């Protein structure tokens, strides 16, 4: 509030204390109060015919609401939800339209009533001062002093100090209980179900995959052996361990020397969890060997260890080192060597 206005309202309300600006910055070039806009008389105030019309309009709106209520009741009976899922559609549509009409009729009618027929005059109310009057403040101080005197709070040191101790320790049990609300994250973000010798199996059946099954251009959606049979924490484990398996021509692969042994005969396995915000990356283009994340269009190049070629992801998809066992089934050489999924606080 500008200083001038404050002065005005102070006079108006008869405050005796000094005006303080507090933290407010008082502008040097004050904008004068423009006051209220000139009053414009409504048609409904000028002509009784218009007022009568407005009254009828409000009544019609309320009647529409009545019709809507009855219609909603009728629709609920007339369009029951049966075994056929398609019946949900008609039920929801007509019931919803009836209820909409019923509620909007009341709302619009009430506002129209207030705007056209209820008294039309402008009111301005000045904001009162936040500081209380001296009398009120003095009375408050008296109450505090009296309470101290009667309770002996300042006088009885033993009671006061033991009470401080009790209050300080009181939240302690709550702290301990809240601390046990959830599991400690620990290193669960750094490890998945994959370990040395885990077979690569098909999602959702859990059938193990032979290297010879993965023909050129094939894509397999892979879960670790044992996940399909899990009951508890299945989704949590799947969300970390999901893998995409692709076979490329060996000569198309541009592999680092250190990671050469991670693929098997052109077959490569990558985490399906995007390193941006964790969507499943699985749009594999057979000819460009690009993997596209549908959420934010991060694109990964499968021929070069899934490095990012486009989009907001900042790290390559982690590669799962794979090989085959004696029976020709694909197995993991180890867990992922880096955490899968999006970046988090400690990496």
């Amino acid at each position, binding site marked *: 509030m500008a200083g001038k206005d404050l002065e005005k309202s102070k006079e108006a309300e008869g405050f005796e204390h000094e005006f303080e600006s507090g933290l407010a910055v008082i502008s040097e070039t004050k904008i004068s109060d423009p006051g209220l806009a000139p009053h414009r008389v409504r048609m409904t105030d000028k002509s009784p015919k218009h007022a009568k019309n407005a009254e009828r309009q409000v009544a019609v709106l309320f009647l529409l609401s009545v019709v809507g209520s009855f219609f909603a009741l009728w629709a609920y009976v007339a369009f029951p939800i049966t075994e056929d899922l398609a019946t949900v559609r008609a039920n929801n549509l007509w019931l919803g339209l009836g209820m909409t009409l019923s509620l909007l009729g009341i709302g619009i009618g009430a506002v129209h009533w207030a705007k056209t027929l209820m008294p039309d005059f402008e009111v301005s109310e000045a904001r009162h001062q936040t500081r209380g009057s001296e009398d009120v403040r003095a009375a408050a101080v008296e109450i505090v002093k009296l309470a101290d005197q009667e309770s002996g709070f300042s006088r009885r040191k033993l009671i006061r100090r033991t009470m401080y101790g009790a209050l300080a320790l009181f939240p302690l049990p709550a702290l301990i209980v809240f601390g046990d609300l959830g599991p400690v994250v620990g290193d669960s973000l750094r490890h998945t179900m994959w370990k040395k010798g885990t077979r690569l199996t098909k999602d*959702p059946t859990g059938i193990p995959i032979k290297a010879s099954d993965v023909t050129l251009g*094939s894509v397999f959606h892979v879960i670790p052996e044992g996940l399909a049979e899990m009951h508890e924490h299945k989704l949590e484990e799947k969300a970390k361990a999901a893998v995409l398996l692709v076979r490329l021509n060996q000569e198309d692969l541009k592999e680092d020397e250190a990671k050469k042994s991670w693929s098997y005969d052109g077959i490569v396995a990558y985490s399906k969890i995007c390193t941006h915000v964790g969507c499943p990356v699985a749009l594999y*283009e057979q000819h460009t060997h690009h993997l596209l994340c549908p959420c934010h269009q991060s694109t990964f190049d499968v021929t070069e260890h899934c490095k990012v070629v486009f989009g907001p992801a900042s790290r390559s998809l982690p590669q799962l080192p794979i090989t085959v066992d004696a029976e020709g089934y694909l197995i993991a050489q180890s867990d992922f060597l880096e955490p899968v999924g999006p970046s988090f606080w400690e990496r």
Partner: protein
Amino acid sequence: MAAYVASLAPGPAIPEDQYLEATGDAAHGGELFRINCAMCHNAVGAGGALTEGKYAPVLKGVSAKHVYEAMVTGPQSMPVFNDSNLTPTDKQDIITYLAYMDENESAGGYALASLGPVAEGLFVWIFGLGGIIAITVWLAAKSN
């Protein structure tokens, strides 16, 4: 002509008719579709965008034979789903799921081409927010 093309190189045979009938397990087909196909073709087969203007086509109204052959050959950007990945019965279930989606319209009302959050979000932004703004303007306006 088909015999000539077949003589050029080996390739998958034309699928057997028994796997093309939409009499499989639509629920299982739906699960397989969501795992293997939905990321490109959309959860109900409405199609979707790939990189650089490439796209996964709409699967509504596509013949069962066409769908089956696409899975075994992997046309354009699409990868191959051979019989050890999706067995012929699995493929039939997927075909059954697509046929089910063709026959049953969306229970939730007008689906806006089933394109998901982008189409729905745009609709809500324009018509939902537009309606709210219109009502707000009317609420605050003085009567004549």
